[in-house]
């Protein structure tokens, strides 16, 4: 190697095709050209194929009358509504089933995760069996199992299974009494909201007092009284403006009340039982990640068992659990697209299924559906990242 002034190695003379910068530039240009060529190839063929098959392009269909019914709608919808309206119905159904399942799966998952660490051998084993069964069986199978294997065995409406509280269960789904709110119901409701706000204010003040004096004023019972008792008293004083529309068992169908379609019930049970197994594992991992010394330190400070879990263990475990929960929620939302397999009218079923079959505009339907899921993923991630920052370790 030639060494020139100052002992620094000179720029070695290399042929231009061995220069790393030129090489890197060359490879990137080739890659870029390949990508562009691939897209051009696909685009060119798509345009030609669409023209040959006489398929329309663009979003002109959005305002065209749909002409099909949807079994579960959160917003008003009929066969005369537009495809665009059908899109919103499907999207809302997806959000509804994901939201309900996320809440239930989190509750069930946390409970089972804690039970897996129970000191009682039988409880821990039973929780383990649950987790292993649901983690190692395909979700689609679980959905089929609940929908056809279990709910399919339900009796016809005339032989409905009747639960206390006028709840009927039959092939049409789960029917519950529907609350009918009187005009005066607004008063207890307003009282409830006001009392909740006051309770929040009390707890903020209690925290401030605790930080300045070290003694936390007891607010628990007072808040409970404010939130529960005051609205109840108002509710009773103005004559209980609430009645229930009770479902009545008919020969072929039940009428009245509020009904949950069997597809919806199966989706919620299936998604909840499946995801809860994964959440349970995450919760267990999070709690196990906290060293025993933390519990012992909390106890030596004189904290009770419940206090040490609430103030010491859980805040640290959450740091491990929250990012894991994020990905579980994301996959649950994506898994809700399996509704198409049992006829739950979610976004995929309505849009990529029925609307695609009617219009034949595959590119638009699939792209819109994918975009929606991408957006949902980003929103969920964003929210969970925000929550994660709140519980994350604050480095001082």
């Amino acid at each position: 190697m030639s060494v020139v002034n100052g002992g620094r190695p000179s720029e070695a003379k290399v042929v231009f095709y061995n220069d790393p910068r030129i090489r890197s530039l060359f490879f990137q240009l080739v890659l870029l050209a390949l990508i562009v060529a691939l897209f051009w190839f696909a685009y060119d063929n798509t345009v030609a194929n669409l023209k040959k098959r006489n398929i329309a392009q663009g979003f002109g269909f959005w305002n065209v009358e749909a002409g099909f019914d949807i079994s579960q709608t959160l917003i008003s919808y009929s066969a005369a509504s537009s495809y665009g309206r059908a899109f919103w119905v499907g999207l809302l159904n997806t959000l509804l089933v994901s939201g309900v399942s996320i809440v239930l799966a989190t509750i069930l998952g946390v409970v089972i995760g804690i039970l897996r660490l129970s000191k009682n051998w039988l409880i821990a084993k039973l929780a383990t069996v649950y987790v292993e069964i649901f983690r190692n069986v395909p979700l689609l199978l679980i959905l089929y199992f609940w929908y056809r294997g279990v709910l399919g065995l339900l009796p016809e409406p005339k032989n409905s299974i009747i639960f206390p509280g006028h709840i009927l269960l039959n092939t049409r789904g789960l029917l519950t009494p529907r609350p009918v709110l009187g005009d005066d119901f607004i008063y207890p409701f307003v009282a409830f909201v006001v009392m909740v706000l006051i309770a929040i204010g009390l707890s903020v003040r209690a925290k401030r007092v605790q930080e300045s004096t070290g003694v936390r004023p007891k607010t628990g019972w007072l808040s409970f009284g404010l939130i529960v008792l005051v609205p109840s008293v108002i509710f009773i004083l103005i004559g209980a403006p609430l009645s229930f529309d009770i479902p009545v068992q008919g020969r072929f169908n039940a009428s009245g009340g509020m009904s949950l379609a069997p597809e919806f019930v199966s989706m919620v049970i299936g998604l909840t039982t499946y995801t809860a197994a994964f959440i349970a594992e995450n919760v267990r991992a999070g709690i196990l990640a906290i060293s025993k010394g933390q519990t012992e330190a909390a106890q030596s400070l004189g904290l009770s068992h419940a206090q040490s879990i609430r103030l010491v263990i859980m805040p640290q475990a959450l740091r491990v659990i929250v990012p894991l929960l994020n990905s579980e929620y994301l996959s649950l939302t994506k898994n809700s697209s399996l509704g198409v397999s049992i006829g739950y009218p979610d976004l995929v079923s309505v849009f990529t299924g029925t609307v695609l079959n009617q219009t034949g505009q595959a590119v638009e339907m699939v792209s819109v559906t994918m975009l929606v899921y991408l957006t949902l993923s980003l929103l969920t991630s964003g929210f969970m990242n925000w929550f994660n920052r709140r519980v994350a370790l604050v480095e001082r």
Partner: protein
Amino acid sequence: MTTSAEVHFVRSQFSEPSPPPMRTSGIVHWLRENLFSSVLNSVVTLLIVFGLYKIIPGLVDTLIINAVWVANDSKACVADVVGHPVGVCWGFVAAHWDYFVFGQYPETMRWRPELFFALEVIGLAWLLVQRIPRKDLGMIYFFIVFPIVSYCLLSGSETLGLPIVQTHYWGGFLVSIVIGTVGIVISVPLGIILALGRRSHMPVARSSSVVVIEFIRGVPLITVLFMANVMFPLFVPEGWRPDSLLRVLVGVALFFSAYMAETVRGGLQAIPRGQYEAAQALGLGYWQMMIKIILPQALKIVIPGIVNNFIGLLKDTTLVAIVNIFDFLKVIEASLNDPVWRTSGMPFAGYLFAAIVYFILCYGMARYSMSVERRLATDNRH
């Protein structure tokens, strides 16, 4: 020198022996510790034991004692016809066994899928059982030789004298395993390339890898399958007409490549910088460094992750039923819709059987991945 007179006190007889400690081993201790440690625990234990006592005999009755093992149609499984209570109708599974495994694959040629299963088991064992040597040859076998041989074997080849079998005759467990195998054979190399791309210093390679990975991970598999099914034929010239199984295979392979890429990336990130620098100091180029130094170490760490991905892949192969591929679940569905077998209890038997099969496969792989994890954990303890 000290004499005994200076010692103030010497005990001249043994003190009473203190009582032995509570037993710290044996069944009684275990029960006391694990089942009856407190009043509440004891109550809960007794409640659970009572519940199990109520449930288990019924389960054994339904699953084994009262179950029907041989049946030619659904009549054999109806309590009114048989005259005694009937449990699960396993006869349904037995009667459809061949259909569940091979679908409509021609009966005279079923040795071909059977040989395929055998080759697959050999390949997986070679790669996954630690004691079998020459993993490099195993990789070549599983990722190059085995796919080519299997393709000739399953779909046929005129030159070898094997009649062509169209893919719409394939079905059942065979199709599930084919999809799973193609998924793993393609997604591992593609995932490695995407992972390397994501960690590359070239902006074009990095950004295109990130876009592909994040896009695919953000959408559900079903939409990818729909895309493969309805959009893929539009992307290619009209004459090509890709086979419906092939379309799904492309979709599944692409989808899992993105997940595999993230797993491999984890492994790449775990390799200390010194390894890269040492390889460069030896004068190795990028690919030599990756193939000889970095990837062997990185892939070894992520074996549990890859196996976990494979569990997810196997479970998700069931989704192809939605785009009308006759996989294991779909053939069970189809048999349930057969009028000869239509009764209300039959789906229970079919789905339970499918659940047991998937559970055995997935649980087995999960145990394997856990054992590798434990082995790796001890490896790192210096």
